[in-house]
């Protein structure tokens, strides 16, 4: 086998390991997939009536359901990557990482296994969320192409955040820290246009909300689902996602290599 074939084979083995681990740790997997659904129900049925009225539509709750789905898709990503950080930190603080490092395996496969496993989990979570939203009455004018574009833009965004979560998991000294730091991403979802119009926010916060990376992603998804133009938003969303992915990738790799060099006794 060539080096590339080994890398692919080792990554596949690690991916299988991580998917098995997700199934064996159902309390976490269910929590991470279930939380966005709980939030969906909360926002539609508890807050939805009033928030829907604020959208200037007379359909209230139903209009808000259509509005909030992109925001909750972002929440799904932010929630899933928490699991990535935890799983990476569990590996790094346990003994098994030393075993992997003393074996002649493709170096990156430990991390790519985590990334691919999380990506699959995140996409599954989003499919479930959209399913629940449709059951609640969510309707979209999007055709197959638009849905594919939604999947693509969210997958790319998830890919970026997952690498970021891998880096956070590597940087964490303990599993507890690793489970807390990605909470920031969850908060970031609310400081944007996922749940309310940014025009209702006070100045300062509004500027932040309009320019933070999650907003163009939500705008693009919302545009694709409602048939609005997405041109600039899609470019910004792609650029942010790629930027985060590349920066986080290099951060993660350097953390992964540095751990190997230092680490007394």
């Amino acid at each position: 086998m060539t080096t590339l074939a080994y890398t692919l084979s080792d990554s596949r083995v690690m991916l299988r390991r991580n998917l098995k681990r997700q199934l064996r740790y159902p309390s976490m997997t269910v929590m991470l997939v279930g939380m966005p659904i709980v939030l969906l129900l909360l926002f539609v049925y508890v807050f939805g009536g009033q928030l829907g009225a604020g959208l200037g539509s007379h359909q209230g709750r139903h209009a808000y359901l259509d509005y909030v789905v992109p925001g909750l898709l972002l929440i799904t990503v932010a929630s899933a990557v928490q699991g990535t950080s935890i799983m990476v930190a569990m590996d790094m603080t346990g003994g098994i990482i030393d075993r992997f490092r003393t074996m002649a395996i493709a170096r990156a496969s430990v991390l790519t296994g985590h990334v691919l496993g999380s990506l699959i989990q995140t996409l599954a979570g989003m499919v479930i969320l959209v399913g629940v939203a449709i059951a609640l009455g969510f309707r979209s004018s999007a055709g197959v192409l638009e849905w594919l574009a939604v999947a693509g833009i969210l997958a790319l965004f998830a890919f970026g955040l997952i690498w970021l979560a891998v880096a956070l998991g590597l940087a964490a000294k303990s599993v507890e820290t690793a489970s807390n730091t990605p909470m920031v991403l969850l908060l970031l979802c609310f400081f944007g246009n996922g749940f309310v119009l940014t025009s209702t926010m006070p100045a300062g916060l509004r500027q932040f909300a309009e320019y933070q990376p999650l907003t163009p992603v939500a705008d693009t998804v919302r545009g694709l689902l409602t048939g609005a133009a997405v041109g600039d938003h899609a470019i910004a969303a792609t650029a942010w996602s790629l930027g985060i992915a590349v920066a986080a990738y290099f951060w993660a790799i350097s953390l992964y290599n540095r751990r190997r060099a230092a680490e007394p006794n």
Partner: protein
Amino acid sequence: MTGQTGAPGIVARDVCKSFGNHVVLDHVNLSVEEGTVLALLGPNGAGKTTMVRILSTLISPSSGSMQIAGHDVADDPDGVRAVIGVTGQFSAVDNLLTGAENLRLMADLRHLGCEAGQRRVAELLEQFDLTDAAGKVLSAYSGGMRRRLDLAMTLVGRPRVIFLDEPTTGLDPRSRLTMWQKIRELVSDGVTVLLTTQYLDEADQLADRVAVLDQGRVVAEGTPAELKSRIPGGHVLLHFARPDLLRSAAGLLPAADPDEDQLVLQVPSDGTVSSLRELLDELHHARIDVERLTVHTPDLDDVFFAVTGSHVAAHAGTGHAPQTGQAPQAGHALQGAQR
């Protein structure tokens, strides 16, 4: 893979390692012939684990050079990784997988292929007495089972050189014996083993050669017999019911060292049955009743005292585990007084 008999399995020359100002390894030289066992003996903090981590490509040394089965550790780490197996002090297993899945993971990462992998997994489960537990998730495993699985995982790729970092620390006596048996079987298959231990009896049982590591330096090296011959610590303790019996026995045995307070007489002895019989016969003929007898065989503390002039406990701060089966406290207190 270089495979000639007699070729060194592990060579380390002038290996140094510091973390900041703290010198952990100070010009360590080691050589392990292929198919033999070297025990790296020393207390906690002596640098044993660091040495294993450096040899197994986990961390790089500050200076020095090493070859494992002919592969240079610095220039060809992947070549080294392909021929070694490492079982660390902390179990390197995946707790969310079953025993069989853990082994299968190793087989897949060693690229054994589907069928050969399955065969090897079944073989190792059988060999390590884990067949019944194969389908159980590791949270249901005992400490001894985990350690066995850990070693089995190391062996999946049939490594030629194996590093075992304190393979029996924390195991109960029976699991410990099982582990020893497994290690002996490996060596009889021609595998080169470097193991670290805090216990002289473990080194004695398993090793062809022993290197004593103290504060990052090799302070003594030789066969277990050579090392023990440098230790004056072997003796028996005779416990008496009354002071007059102690005094008569002390009169009979001029080389002995009496302790009036404890009513104990310390007699130098190599601990063999014939010498014990001789001693007891002598006391019996003189009609001196001995209440109790304990045999003290040299342990790590004695080796340490002999080669460094200080006690293990003084370095480690933890004392040593009473693995020799005697009452080390009493024995050492007396020895200390004698010295």
